[in-house]
């Protein structure tokens, strides 16, 4: 257990996309209980600095592990398959068509019910795609194919957050 251990080692969990969320949460609380700066409030500056570094590192790993897409991207990178989303934007035509349809549907939507219906559709698409991604990683052990799926899901995620913002704007 070192500051530069990978996230899975740090949390003592198997290097898989399949995850026991309750165990991850519990482990996070145990780790923070050890490293949080408040635990060292009466010790000196050296302990405080080390604690700060560790607490940041533990939170960073936790954020990455608990998010299924970030966890998948991290597993790809660990297996040597770069995500490199900025330079690698080639997507299958069917995927791009669907993205365009969604965007148009959002542009046309003018009630929060319509936006909500679209959000539900996107959420269901996302769930299915994440299931396939998990299988690509844990069953097929194909990080290169998984990296392609991650890139596609990053588009979906961005669109989902646009939907959220729109919903928030309509709700006020």
């Amino acid at each position, binding site marked *: 257990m070192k500051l530069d251990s990978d996230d899975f080692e740090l949390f003592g969990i198997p290097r898989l996309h399949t995850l026991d969320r309750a165990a991850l949460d519990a482990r996070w*609380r145990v*780790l923070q209980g050890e490293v*949080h700066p*408040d*635990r060292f409030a009466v010790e000196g500056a050296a302990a405080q600095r080390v604690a700060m570094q560790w607490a940041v590192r533990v939170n960073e790993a936790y954020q990455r592990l608990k998010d299924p897409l970030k966890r998948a991207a991290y597993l790809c990178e660990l297996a040597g398959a770069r995500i490199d989303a900025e330079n690698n934007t080639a997507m299958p035509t069917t995927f791009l068509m669907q993205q365009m349809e969604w965007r148009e549907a959002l542009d046309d939507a003018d009630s929060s019910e319509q936006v909500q219906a679209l959000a539900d559709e996107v959420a269901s698409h996302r769930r299915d795609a994440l299931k396939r991604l998990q299988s690509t990683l844990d069953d097929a052990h194909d990080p290169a194919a998984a990296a392609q799926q991650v890139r596609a899901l990053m588009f979906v995620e961005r669109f989902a957050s646009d939907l959220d913002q729109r919903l928030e704007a309509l709700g006020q």
Partner: protein
Amino acid sequence: MALLQISEPGGAPDPHQRRIAVGIDLGTTHSLVAAVRHSVAECLPDEQGRVILPSAVRYLAEGGRQIGHAALAEAAIDPRNTIVSVKRFMGRGLADIAGRDKLPYDFVAAPGMVQINTVAGVKSPVEVSAEILAALRQRAEDSFDDDLFGAVITVPAYFDDAQRQATKDAAQLAGINVLRLISEPTAAAIAYGLENGSEGLYAVYDLGGGTFDISLLRLTQGVFEVVATGGDSSLGGDDFDASLAEWALLEAGLDVATPQDKRAVLVAARATKEKLSSADHATLACPLASGELSVRVTRDQFVSITQALVARTLAVVKRVLRDAKTDKADVNGIVMVGGSTRMPMIQSAVGEFFGQTPLTNLNPDEVVALGAAIQAHALAGNAGGDELLLLDVIALSLGLETMGGLVERIIPRNSTIPTARAQDFTTFKDGQIAMAIHVVQGERELVSDCRSLARFELRGIPPMVAGAARIRVSFQVDADGLLNVSAREEGSGVEAAISVKPSYGLQDEDIARMLKEGFATAEEDMRARSLRESVVEAERMLLATRSALSADGDLLSVEERADIERLMLEAEAVRAGTDHHLIDAKVEALAKGTEAFAAERMNRGIRQALSGRRVEEV
């Protein structure tokens, strides 16, 4: 994790025994100080037995000031010089202050933060808040007949970086060592959680005099984890007073023009509001320059006058539930905090929304200070084995301005702190040698809609074609929720960093000047205070190192141990001296020299924690 420290027989007394640590609720309308005594948290009363200190400061023409009850009593006759609800101005510019034309103050626009012109000169909200904090510090020191070791000060969860920094500056000005800034709802949850031994997901609805906060916390075996938080830093009981006052004036066909009238009608509205919490109707009455104001109000009328304000709070509650990806049905309990939750319509609206009766068994005025006191007690190392861990979040996203005035979010809201995040940027033009970095806080897409926190420049980038430089900007948020930003060009290693101080940023000279000008806490010499702080820090560091050596000394080689012991001897040698700079330097050398050892100990602690608990499973 902190080891118990036992002093040698006949040696120096254990510094633990004299660590007086308090919790301070620096509120909009009133403030309190609490401490754990005989393992029970209690609010400390003043000489008259009152625990509440009205957050009011009156500046007098002949110099000096009145603080608390005495100031509040004069608010109506001397409104211009009697500053109340100063918390609403902390870290805020003139333009940010809603309804400022209805307030009786002579505001002065100043860079970063508004100031107020009084008969005793121009005062910043930080100075006014420091007066209140100093009064509470005095009260605590009188109660214990000892110096204060430190304090946990509460801030609304929704306070941004500028407001938090302003609060910390005010504490520094009042001579208080801030152990931690914690969120008010979190403090309330500590007090409730420990009182009731609760587990599960709790919503804390905190409607104070000037601010509204809602936090969702998960309580698990002594860990208080904030899941999501939100609020409105300019919505509180004051707004209910203002709405009621406005309505009454309209009903009566009267107008207010003078500062005295503005204050008088607000005071009358507040009294009427309080009466309506128990009575069905009340009369809002006060004499004004334009005539006698007297309007009868029923509770139903009051409910309809203020329903938009209640709805605003519930909209925020909904957003926080959405952020937490949770449903209101998952909430195990609702805690009500803040004097404004005494209004029956607030309790029924919140109860109706969640479908359960809110918890109100602790005094809503005191609960925040009590929770802060419990945390202060633990941070000062007084709690022994009573492990309590707070995992808080930042309430507002942090980001940078990019081309076109757009915000690139670096740290999203509701990230657990401490946290750090880095992002790479590049140059826009060929041969660009400098980059302007503008740090903002808020949820909106456009920079102009967010709060500007700081600007700095990274200079000396080697000229390259556009897009070739790689500039890594790192954000680090500490456990107080305060931000540090640094930027580095990766190719050349050029660096720039800034501690995000709001642009009003009090300099050390300013503080020295304020102290010299007869500030409430300035009885003691600045230098004496610095020296005492340095000596305490040296003692603390030496003690911590000694106990670390005896617990984990086996991690060190003979040479490493000798190095640390030499540094300890050097610190020991200067400790009794009078040069605080020298003491600081030796303590810092010891801190640097023990950092690798501290890291090794941390590794060991984590290994033990994980292996020890894997079997029993947490």
